[in-house]
């Protein structure tokens, strides 16, 4: 895989699953999930 492709794949996975993780963390903080 080329460097650019690796970066974009990691970026895509990071933004989506990172975003989801932050949301879940906020929900867990409020002991609501």
């Amino acid at each position, binding site marked *: 895989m080329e460097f650019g*492709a690796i970066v974009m794949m990691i970026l895509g996975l990071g*933004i989506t699953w990172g975003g989801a993780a932050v949301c879940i963390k906020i*929900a867990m903080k409020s002991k609501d999930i």
Partner: protein
Amino acid sequence: MAQRENWGTRTGFILAAVGSAIGLGNIWRFPYMVYDNGGGAFLIPYFFALITAGIPIIIMEFGLGHKYKGAAPKTFFSINKKWEWLGWWQVLVSFVISVYYVVVIGWAVNYTKFAFTQGWGTDTKAFFFGDFLKLSSSPLELGGIVWPVFIGTALVWLITWAVLFSGVKKGIEAANKVFMPVLFVLILVIMGRALTLDGAFDGLNYLFKPDFSKVLDPKVWIAAYGQIFFTLSICFAIMITYASYLPDDSDINNNGMMAAFINCGFSMVAGIMVFGVLGYMAAQEGVGIQDVAGAGVGLAFITIPKAINLLPASWFFGPLFFISIVFAGLSSMISISEACCSAIMDKFSIARKSAVTGYVFVGFLASLIFMTEGGLFVLDITDHFINNFGIVFAGLVEVIFIAWLFKIEAVREHINSISEFAVGKWWNFCLMAITPVVLGYMGVRNLLGDLNEPYEGYAIKALVIYGWAVVLGVFILGVLIHSVTNDKD
């Protein structure tokens, strides 16, 4: 009047909302959209569309459903009595989608069985169109019922009926608590296997290699917004309905963002899985990825079966793939049907069991046309028109109604008052400016495209019957239901 049902847990609601958003499109549409629109560079407009349209609309719909505690018609009626028709329009769009979507899941049920022995043979294209669908020569030649499709579809209707019949908590929530974790595990297992195959990383390279020149192409931006609109189950009554079952103290903003991010994350994983397999297939056949890459029905029922034939332990991974398709489709099918049933229950004060049974019976009869030998053609036309005009225009009217004609600030105050974190004025701006402009442009462009050139070269008569008449019919019927029932009241 009976008290409105509630979700049992927040996790249950999130899984149901995610289950609704994750559908066949995540697996067979998103990867090709990325590949065909600049590779990794497509993710830039895609995430921009997610932030400026997808998340604002899903939060808006969660907020409306939660605030007014009703399915789409009741919600719009509560805002302004003259606008109930908009809800019925969206419900009827959902109904049309459900009656053909169920047939595609029925195909996948059949293919799960074929996958154990690769019953599709070596010529997967001839098998799909000929042996399996017995495809006629045109949409105007329906022919007879294709019985394996009939049986598969009947099974999916039966499951949908059983889930909805059991209610929000014991039916929809319980089903999604099984479907979603299993779906994620299956996709991860297949992805893991795909990545260990020869040529898989060449496939991923093709998928993610960025062509940044495409970011300057307006068509790529429209494709990104289109993908976001279609992937999140927004603008056709579902999310409003699901949010109407939330308890009073629900975190709307976080729920909306969570559902959107998980859905898009699933798309990313599905893209890696699909292009990993396609990379392997291209390597095995000694062809380029461009020769095997595709989308939609062709990808799922022709290309992937061909790739499964080449896989080691194909008897194991083949069924897993099609079970994933069935689960992804079922969770969406349940949500689409619930949006319709909930509207019927709200309006006519019918008990859930009667409403669901009646809906499934009528839906099953309506889906018969898609189970015929000409069914694939009819499905293709109806799907094209209902997506490009039904969802886009109903969404445009919804956003204009809420953002411009109703006090959008009142919705923002409501959702911020009960959420862990607040959305700022940017949310109003996205809904008042960006979303209507993009949806309006998409709608006009779609309209001009179809008026200038018959879709896929089909006969005008077929396009009128299965396309234009359906799209106009659901709008007119929506207005009629509003007029007749409110006159009576």
